[in-house]
């Protein structure tokens, strides 16, 4: 058995060394792949807050990913066409500034998560899974029919958004920016797990009755987790849209919700670095298997099936044995 922190350390080193090598060897595509892995990891870290700690099996997290993406798309679209964004009572100018876009993505996805969470948490178990899935679809179809912003075709943003002091069009700079954000969120996540809220939420997943018996409301704890979770996944969506310079309803698709969940489970549910490992492995599989066969998802399906049936703790569980998020 390997200590979990060694796996984490190797992962962090890998995320620094591989792109550095790619930079030296002039392999920008590898850097783009690594950026993709980091952004997907961020989305999965978001889901892990709800799923891993809070035990909320949300199959609708693509909603937040898509909202983040569309916030970026819409703000940048209005900036690149020099048209104001009409919000009914007032209108605002578009923007190409990443910090502003991120903030908007976080706030809006948190708000939507609060609404979806409040409705969905009225139920539990299978109902919760199906309802989150259905809400995700609602956004999907809404995006498809929203012609002002590309409808089913999506829309392109011609120039990557800007960050003060960086040239975000240089792949390694954008990668570094995403990696720093991921690191920051992981740090906050690690603090959260050990905090008052983290302890209460973790208990609310394990024994909600106990949590009520000490005078706390497990539903409010779970709702808060859902909101935080949605906000992080929303931020990832904004970055993802910036990586591709393109947003489309596919970001809202239920397959994507399923895939974020796969990332979490592949790495190890409830582990701090589980989603990161899951995303790295997923992108690597996609790249290498995808290069060998057009039907690589068959193999992904088989791997996933084997993990669910025989290796409940995901890859980190296989490497390090059983243990939860905190020890």
């Amino acid at each position: 058995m390997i200590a979990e922190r060694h796996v984490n350390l190797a992962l962090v080193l890998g995320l620094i060394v591989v792109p550095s090598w790619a930079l030296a060897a002039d392999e920008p595509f590898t850097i783009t792949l690594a950026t993709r892995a980091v952004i997907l990891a961020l989305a999965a870290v978001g889901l892990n807050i709800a799923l891993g700690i809070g035990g909320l099996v949300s199959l609708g997290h693509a909603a937040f990913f898509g909202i983040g993406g569309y916030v970026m798309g819409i703000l940048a679209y209005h900036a690149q066409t020099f048209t104001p964004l009409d919000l009914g009572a007032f209108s605002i100018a578009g923007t190409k500034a990443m910090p502003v876009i991120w903030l908007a993505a976080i706030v809006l996805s948190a708000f939507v998560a609060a609404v979806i969470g409040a409705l969905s948490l009225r139920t539990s178990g299978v109902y919760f899974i199906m309802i989150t899935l259905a809400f995700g679809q609602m956004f999907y179809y809404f995006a498809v029919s929203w012609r002002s912003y590309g409808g089913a075709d999506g829309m392109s943003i011609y120039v990557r958004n800007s960050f003060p002091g960086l040239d975000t069009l240089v792949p390694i700079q954008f990668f570094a920016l995403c990696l720093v954000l991921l690191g920051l969120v992981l740090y906050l996540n690690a603090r959260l797990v050990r905090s008052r809220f983290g302890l209460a939420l973790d208990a609310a997943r394990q024994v909600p009755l106990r949590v009520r018996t000490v005078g706390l409301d497990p539903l409010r704890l779970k709702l808060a987790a859902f909101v935080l979770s949605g906000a992080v996944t929303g931020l990832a969506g904004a970055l993802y849209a910036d990586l591709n310079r393109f947003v489309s309803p596919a970001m809202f698709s239920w397959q994507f919700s399923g895939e974020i969940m796969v990332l979490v489970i592949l790495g190890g549910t409830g582990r701090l670095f589980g989603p990161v490992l899951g995303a790295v492995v997923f992108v690597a599989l996609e790249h290498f298997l995808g290069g060998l066969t057009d039907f690589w998802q068959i193999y992904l399906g088989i791997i996933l099936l084997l993990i669910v049936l025989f290796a409940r703790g995901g890859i980190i569980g296989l490497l390090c044995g059983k243990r939860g998020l905190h020890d």
Partner: protein
Amino acid sequence: MQAGAGPGVFRGPPRLQRDRTARHMSAILIVEQILNGLQFGVMLFLMAAGLTLIFGVMGLINLAHGSLYMIGAFVAAAVAGATGSFLLAMICALVAAAVAGAIVEIVVIRRLYAAEHLDQVLATFALILIFSEGTRWVFGSFPMYLEIPDYLSGAVTLPGGIQYPLYRVMLIGAGLAVGLGLWALIEHTRIGIRIRAGENDREMVAALGVDISRLYTLVFALGAALAGLSGAMVGAIQSVQVGMGEPVLILAFVVIVIGGIGSIRGALVGALLVGLTDTLGGVFLPELFKLFMAPAAATSVGSALASMSIYIVMSLVLIWRPTGLFGGRA
């Protein structure tokens, strides 16, 4: 992570006569759309009935139910293409989906009954990947088509002089007949008694000497057969392609959330509600908004709202009754 935009679910309306625009929104149009909604709802019911039965008896949430629908459609298209017989195509689709369901149950699903919902979701998600890619591998990425046979094409004249496609009338009739058969099976046969008993107390049923694992395989295959039949029948009015199952699956989820998980009656009521809401909303909401908005904006807002309408209905039902209209347990 390229997610295929779901192909249009079998929501109806290729309207019969294009010149009937909203400005002459006649009683005929309304009846026609209600029939479309009914047809849509009946097909949804076949999907939802299998899902809700499998959940009710085995406690399993099965995302791969849409794959069985897809298998039905592909087998039907292939058999009809090879033999020219529509009826044979339907029978083969039903049998193929049932067999595929039984195999999947024996190889994978039965290991999941005791597992957490999360594991069930992931394992059946993995099955979707395997089925979808496998189908693409065997049949290619191009859509296939299933022709409506001559004896079912054309229109019938309904009372009041409304022309409506015969095939869709057949779909409504066949769907209702299957629903009735299902009800009779569950209420009036020995297998039905065991299924109902299995819903209530599986240890007891096992203790009474019923082979529970065979019963489960049977129920799963039955649900699969319903999905396959539904896919095959709908295959004749839309293209048969990979990924066609999942949009239907998700709507079927909405149906059983509304109806109450485990309740066949709830599945029927929910399916008709969703079918009618979706079809009528898509046609009439834009018209409604035209009453007080500019036409272009009304179409845009109306169709956006229509695409969300069933989810809004679902939310309202949930606020009112968190376990669905006919559901007992969460």
